[in-house]
């Protein structure tokens, strides 16, 4: 029977080849045979390409249950009419490209999304425009995918009735690049998602956070811009997150931070710029973090350290014209400051080695007072305050006395 076996094998080969090499293109348009996206999917074989022509398609609960490539031509509109979820993907290797999805339904019991990926692998979601959404791109227990070049513009006002732009939940190895997220609850949200790369995104005007990590480890985010969010980036209960080259700007408000660290261990924060935030970095219960070569410019507080932060190192950062460089709420310090540039440093450098000869104390008495009685902030930059700050500097009583930079730089550090 060897001949027959051979036949079967080649038959299988032909079927596989014909499926991949000779995959069909299916056109969907208002005047075609197939008038809806769901119709196109139903008619398609695995690995087919569906091309959607320009037009408006009023559809919800579109189910993509086979590996397909869905391409929109000239941004066809998929309108959910505020009724519910729009596209759900349950098959591996799906690509969605170039759609304009709007009017996702709002619900208080289920998280309706513009696109939801459920337990799939190797997906690509790109060039989408999402408007009037609840949740945008919701990646659920899916791995090895890419989400890039999407534009998500929400109209969120309150936290309780809005959703996140891009949400990952139990999803690993996802690349999120070049997305533009605005006015949603959290721009990008990761929960239980490891080894993800978040790169070159712009996340602004979000109600809560520009980027939010929860219980996610070994992720990298770099070259992103976070502007005017409730808080720029919140990293919580996560390990080994790398944060490089991001810009955190104008996150203003009573509970606003450029970067919020809570229960974070072994992270690296390098080459970032924090500009004009109420609080540049707010860190709480975070250990062994390396802060290297960051710029803190014109923030209210450059860094605010709340309890239980141990063995963090701050080296080679620039602290420029912040109202307060540092705030500590305790007298204990286990963190190391070395070789930073502080614009408020008034010491001298007699031996000309580029480092000041007198140590710099970043925590002022006034920042301690403001911590205790916030209303006293109104006395900022008063002569009296300068006098008591000076006396505290000479003999520290209220602020940690071992908190000092022994090698403050004389010139601004460049890299």
């Amino acid at each position, binding site marked *: 029977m060897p001949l027959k076996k051979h036949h079967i094998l080649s038959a299988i080969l032909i079927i596989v080849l014909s499926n991949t090499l000779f995959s069909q293109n299916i056109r969907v348009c208002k005047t075609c045979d197939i008038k809806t996206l769901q119709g196109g999917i139903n008619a398609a074989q695995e690995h087919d390409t569906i091309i959607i022509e320009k037009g408006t398609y009023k559809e919800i609960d579109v189910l993509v249950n086979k590996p397909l490539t869905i391409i929109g031509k000239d941004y066809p509109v998929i309108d959910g009419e505020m009724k519910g979820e729009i596209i759900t993907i349950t098959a591996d290797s799906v690509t969605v490209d170039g759609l304009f999805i709007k009017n996702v339904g709002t619900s208080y019991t289920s998280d309706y999304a513009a696109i939801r990926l459920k337990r799939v692998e190797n997906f690509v979601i790109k060039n989408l425009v999402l408007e009037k959404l609840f949740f945008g791109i919701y990646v659920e227990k899916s791995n090895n995918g890419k989400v890039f070049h999407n534009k998500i513009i929400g109209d969120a006002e309150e936290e309780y009735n809005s959703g996140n732009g891009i949400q990952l939940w139990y999803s690993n190895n996802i690349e999120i690049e070049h997305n533009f997220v605005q006015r949603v609850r959290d721009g990008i949200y990761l929960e239980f998602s490891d080894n993800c790369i978040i790169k070159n995104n712009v996340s602004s005007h979000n109600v809560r956070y520009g980027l939010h990590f929860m219980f996610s480890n070994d992720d990298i985010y770099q070259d992103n811009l976070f502007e005017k969010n409730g808080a720029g980036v919140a990293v919580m209960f996560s390990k080994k997150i790398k944060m490089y080259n991001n810009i955190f700007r104008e996150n203003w408000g009573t509970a606003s931070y450029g970067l919020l660290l809570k229960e974070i261990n072994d992270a690296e924060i390098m080459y970032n710029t924090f500009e004009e935030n109420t609080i540049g970095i707010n860190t709480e219960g975070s250990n062994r973090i390396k802060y290297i070569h960051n710029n803190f410019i014109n923030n209210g507080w450059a860094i605010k350290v709340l309890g239980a932060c141990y063995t963090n190192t701050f080296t080679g950062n620039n602290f420029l014209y912040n109202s307060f460089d540092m705030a500590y709420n305790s007298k204990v310090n286990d963190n190391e400051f070395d070789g930073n540039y502080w614009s408020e440093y008034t010491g001298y450098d007699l031996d000309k080695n580029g480092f000041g000869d007198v140590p710099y104390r970043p925590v002022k008495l006034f920042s301690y007072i403001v911590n205790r009685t916030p*209303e006293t902030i109104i006395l900022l930059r008063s002569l009296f305050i300068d006098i008591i700050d000076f006396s505290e500097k000479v003999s520290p009583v209220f602020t940690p006395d071992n908190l000092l930079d022994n090698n403050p730089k004389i010139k601004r550090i460049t890299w």
Partner: protein
Amino acid sequence: MFKILKYSFFDLMRSRWSYVYFAFYLLLGIVLLFLNNDLSKAVITLMNVIIILVPLIGTIFGVMYYYNSKEFTELLLAQPLKRSSIFLGQYLGVAISLSMSLILGLGIPFVFYGLFMSNAIWDFSLLLITGVFLTLIFTALAFNIALSNENKIKGFGYAILMWLFLAVIYDGLFLMSLLFFEDYPLDKLSLIGTVLNPVDLSRTLILLKLDISALLGYTGAVFKQFFGTNFGLIVSFTMLIVWVALPVLRIAKKSKKKDF
């Protein structure tokens, strides 16, 4: 009144002290800019200078001028002139010449440095406006003190004490009371405390520009309304005008009743 203003003004313009004052600001501006190489840092240093030094110089100059020109004033009083116009003329003469020294002294180096092309121009003009207001307020207060005290030494003493109180001691008491009452809601109290002192008032006005990100860190609706909107700016300016108007009115009133 304008004639007297003119005489006082030109008299002061010829005096050595105006030049010293002008030269001091010129030097300060140049040193700040060309040693610092950074406009925003210079503006912060300048703020400290303006808030402390301008009131001091206004006070001392006002008292000094009043006592020095006393004979001339008595001569004028013998003429058929309105008393209020004599004293207000002298007051404005001093205040305007001081303001001019301030504006020119600081303005010239900044203009040469390229102020018009930088975006610090608004911060800088706000600084100058506050400086002018402080000059007007403290010269008026100094005139008040001088009018009420015949004794020169006593007058100087009170004037310096007033400056010391408003510039330093007031903030100390203010801070103590805030700490003492920290269990109570304090945002209204702290705003009222600020408004009652012209030095604090001008400081807050400048803070609104320089440290807005820190000021917004405090959770209080009143604070938020005051600092987050133009409301704060408007209230501060109105209060500064009130602060000029009250002592000036008292000069007019006091001078009418005073025996010479």
